[in-house]
């Protein structure tokens, strides 16, 4: 289960809406599995169907997390024309077995879908999201 504050959920949705129709992506860093620090990332692909963190930005952010004893608790991205479910591409590149993979869909501008998954060894498991 992902437990996350309303404030962080709102920030993810706001980022996804702002970058629509391109996919938005980012990280929430934290300790002991608790998401705390919101880090919106550049989508180096600037694409409506693909995202990739800019490699140098990722390096800086990952090193900063390391220095602060944080980990990427949440890795989020948006789908802008399809449902908030991991695609085959998402599954094949998922590389943080300890992260909650959050997907939001902005295809319906009035009703943003917000869902969370674990992706380990190619297996997707949806989990409950508890907003506090």
């Amino acid at each position, binding site marked *: 289960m992902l437990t996350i504050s309303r404030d962080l959920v709102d920030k993810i949705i706001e980022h996804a809406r702002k970058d629509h129709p391109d996919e938005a992506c980012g990280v929430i860093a934290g300790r002991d599995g608790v998401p705390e620090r919101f880090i919106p990332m550049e989508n180096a692909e600037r694409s409506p169907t693909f*995202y990739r963190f800019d*490699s140098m930005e990722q390096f800086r952010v990952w090193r900063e997390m390391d220095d602060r004893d944080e980990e990427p608790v949440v890795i989020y991205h948006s789908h802008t024309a399809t449902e908030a479910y991991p*695609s085959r591409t998402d599954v094949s590149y998922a590389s943080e077995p*300890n992260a909650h993979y959050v997907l939001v869909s902005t295809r319906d501008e009035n009703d943003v879908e917000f869902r969370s998954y674990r992706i380990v060894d190619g297996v997707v498991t949806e989990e409950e999201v508890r907003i506090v």
Partner: protein
Amino acid sequence: MAVEVRIPTILRTYTGGAKAVKAEGSTLDELIADLEARHPGIKERLVEEGSLRRFVNVYLNDEDVRFLGGLETPVSDGDTVTVLPAVAGGAR
């Protein structure tokens, strides 16, 4: 002295859980060969058909090796090599 290689979570199964390991070589290619000798299986996760895998980022100190010389990039004692899987995906 040797080169310190920082290993991402997903590849620590090859390093007995270690976050950083030592390896030697004068180029990134040699370094990865040495890494493979010490931690069998890891090379295949980094290299494909003679070049770095597209969705693996490798940094020499603070630079992405793609902007240096890829596998031909020279490395020296005291350098730090960081491996990070690219974070990528998408609806396509």
